[in-house]
């Protein structure tokens, strides 16, 4: 007999916990399949990741359909709110979950072509990574946030080392040490906040902050600052970001592509907690640390832009572009202006998709140079895109004075795809019209003009200059890869490798064609973030499911 408790909650309510449970179950299942059966595991993983994305989209649709009061609250243990843990799907969480699902699916499709063969537990680690991401976005509890951070970090340690080789192990050692230290800071911050407010529920903390005694305010600020350092180290704020370019640059392509969203988890945590706890009306703590966020973000943006210009290798350049996007986001968040946050959220989606596509492209572009630490080439010639013509000039062709052929060479389809994809990706990252990077920067710049002030004008200038630097450095790399005469064969691509890149860029293009809808959504999200009382009321007002014995007499 089914206990009545299970029937009393509508099935759709469980949608909130599904994105966390699905990867966990899939990972457990694949662990039991043992070390072989890659094909089966690949199929299961792809199915589960696609389903996860579908669930995230369903969540987004549900949140959007609810209008302004759209908060999905789920109490996993059915304890009333400040005591039990809680999952919250608000517009921001649903938005981030969809991004995580999209990036995950693209990286996985890419990995199915070659990289899944480089290690035994790739699929398991990948699913745990997704579980950590979904959990971190959906949780409404500070300590649960720590646990999900650790889940996604532990999985990312494994994914970073995927493929082996001394470069990965060396970068991995630094990455793990930095993240362990950041996690310890996270714990200290959580403990201090608990000591001051006596609760770990984010909404409850924000609610209790008004009751904090004036003499405890210093302790509260210290706790918040330590917690922020942990998040900012993960979000790659300068000067806490020197680990990022080597770590992401040495990771295998699909792992690096997933990592494109890991820095955004830090940005998300800052955005969520800072807007919740320190809004403008928070009295003595109003906008605590806002100046640090703004100027730290600006320094990060400048550092990232200069780093892009200085880097010779494409994988390091991609790392610095991730840093620059983090800096833009943190600086924009620090202004605490809904219009600017709305543009920043659009930029977050655009830069995550483009960063993911760029990391996937890096490997394809470098493949002709034979990256030494790649797995063995499993390419058996099936699935390869056709070369239209042999890249070597046929015999008896017309040659000019320098013995160069006079007619143009036909471009192989693979090279054409790489060229077009790289150009699109570069334009999105640099923010050139008419792509999504441009729309987001335009939205931010038009908000900045109204804000005025030294910091606003600095961000205004840096947004434009960093776009110029990104365009210069990416075009330089593009010329180096596509236009220099080199005796290298046209790269051989598999359809499975080109498909995710095309899909990611298509998503970025779709964001432009639907820019009004997307901007409307990000604007509603930003408005909700800047009215934290709505979040607090929604979470604190969550109803538990009544016990069947109490409610209906004898079961």
């Amino acid at each position, binding site marked *: 007999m089914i206990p009545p408790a299970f029937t009393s909650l509508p099935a759709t309510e469980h949608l909130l916990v599904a994105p966390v449970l699905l990867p966990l179950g899939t990972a457990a299942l694949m662990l039991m399949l043992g070390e072989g059966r890659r094909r089966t595991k690949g199929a299961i993983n792809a199915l589960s990741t696609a389903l996860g994305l579908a669930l995230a989209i369903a969540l987004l649709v549900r949140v959007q359909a609810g209008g302004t009061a759209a908060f999905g609250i789920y109490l996993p243990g059915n304890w009333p709110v400040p005591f039990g843990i809680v999952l919250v799907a608000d517009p921001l969480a649903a938005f981030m979950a969809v991004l995580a699902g999209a990036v995950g699916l693209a990286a996985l499709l890419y990995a199915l072509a070659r990289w899944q063969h480089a290690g035994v537990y790739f699929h398991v680690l990948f699913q745990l990574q997704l579980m950590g991401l979904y959990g971190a976005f959906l949780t409404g509890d500070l*300590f649960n946030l720590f*646990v999900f951070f*650790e889940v996604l*970090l*532990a999985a990312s*340690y494994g994914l970073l*080392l995927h493929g082996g*080789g*001394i470069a990965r*192990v*060396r970068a*991995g*050692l*630094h990455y*793990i*040490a930095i993240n*362990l*230290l950041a*996690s*310890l800071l996270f*714990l*200290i911050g*959580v*403990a*201090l906040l*608990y*000591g001051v407010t006596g609760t*770990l529920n984010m909404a409850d903390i924000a609610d209790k902050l008004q009751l904090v005694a004036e003499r405890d305010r210093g302790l509260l600020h210290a706790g918040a600052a330590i917690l922020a350092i942990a998040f900012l180290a993960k979000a790659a704020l300068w000067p806490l970001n020197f680990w990022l370019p080597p770590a992401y640059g040495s990771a295998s392509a699909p792992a690096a592509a997933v990592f494109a969203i890991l820095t955004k988890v830090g940005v998300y945590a800052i955005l969520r907690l800072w807007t919740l706890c320190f809004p403008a009306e928070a009295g003595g703590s109003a906008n605590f640390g806002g100046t640090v966020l703004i100027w730290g973000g600006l320094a990060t943006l400048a550092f990232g832009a200069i780093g892009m210009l200085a880097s010779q290798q494409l994988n390091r350049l991609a790392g610095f572009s991730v840093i620059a996007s983090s800096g833009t986001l943190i600086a924009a968040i620090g202004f605490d202006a809904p219009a600017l946050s709305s543009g920043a959220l659009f930029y977050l989606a655009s830069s995550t998709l483009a960063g993911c596509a760029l990391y996937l492209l890096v490997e394809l572009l470098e493949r002709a140079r034979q990256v030494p630490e790649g797995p063995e080439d499993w390419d058996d010639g099936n699935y390869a895109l056709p070369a239209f013509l042999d890249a070597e000039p046929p015999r008896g062709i017309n040659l000019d004075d320098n013995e160069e052929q006079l007619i143009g060479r036909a471009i192989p389809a693979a090279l054409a795809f790489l060229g077009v994809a790289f150009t699109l990706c570069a334009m999105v990252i640099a923010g050139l019209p008419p792509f999504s990077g441009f729309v987001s920067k335009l939205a931010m710049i038009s908000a900045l003009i109204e804000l005025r002030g030294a910091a606003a004008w600095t961000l205004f200038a840096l947004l434009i200059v960093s776009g110029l630097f990104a365009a210069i450095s990416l075009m330089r790399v593009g010329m180096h890869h596509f236009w220099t005469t080199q005796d290298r064969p046209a790269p051989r691509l598999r359809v499975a490798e080109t498909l995710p890149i095309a899909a990611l860029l298509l998503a970025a293009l779709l964001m432009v064609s639907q820019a009004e809808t997307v901007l409307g959504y990000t604007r509603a999200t930003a408005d909700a973030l800047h009215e934290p009382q709505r979040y607090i009321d929604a979470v604190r007002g969550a109803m538990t499911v009544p016990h069947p014995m109490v409610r209906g007499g004898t079961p």
Partner: protein
Amino acid sequence: MELIISIAIGIMAGAGVWLVLRPRTFQVLIGLSLLSYAVNLFIFSVGSLSVDAEPIVRPGLPADLQHYTDPLPQSLVLTAIVIGFATTALFLVVLLALRGLSGGDHVDGEEERA
């Protein structure tokens, strides 16, 4: 008791920070372990220190923090210990892998140039 606990936390955190900044991988590992002990003790201490107080409510005794110790930091410490232990073990594996691949125990995989 507050003084003893805070001195213990301070010594462990100080030693941990110093060791983490050392160039040998094993020193970094021990430093991270010491730091995590310090943090665990710190979390434990935010629940206000008390001797011989139980975390579970007994009938007849009013349920407030005068008569009981706060059970939540204890459960947080338990979780933090488990997670810290697992990640430190993972760090140890990577340490050994780097040792095997580079033949040395410098954190950068190669000795500094003099």
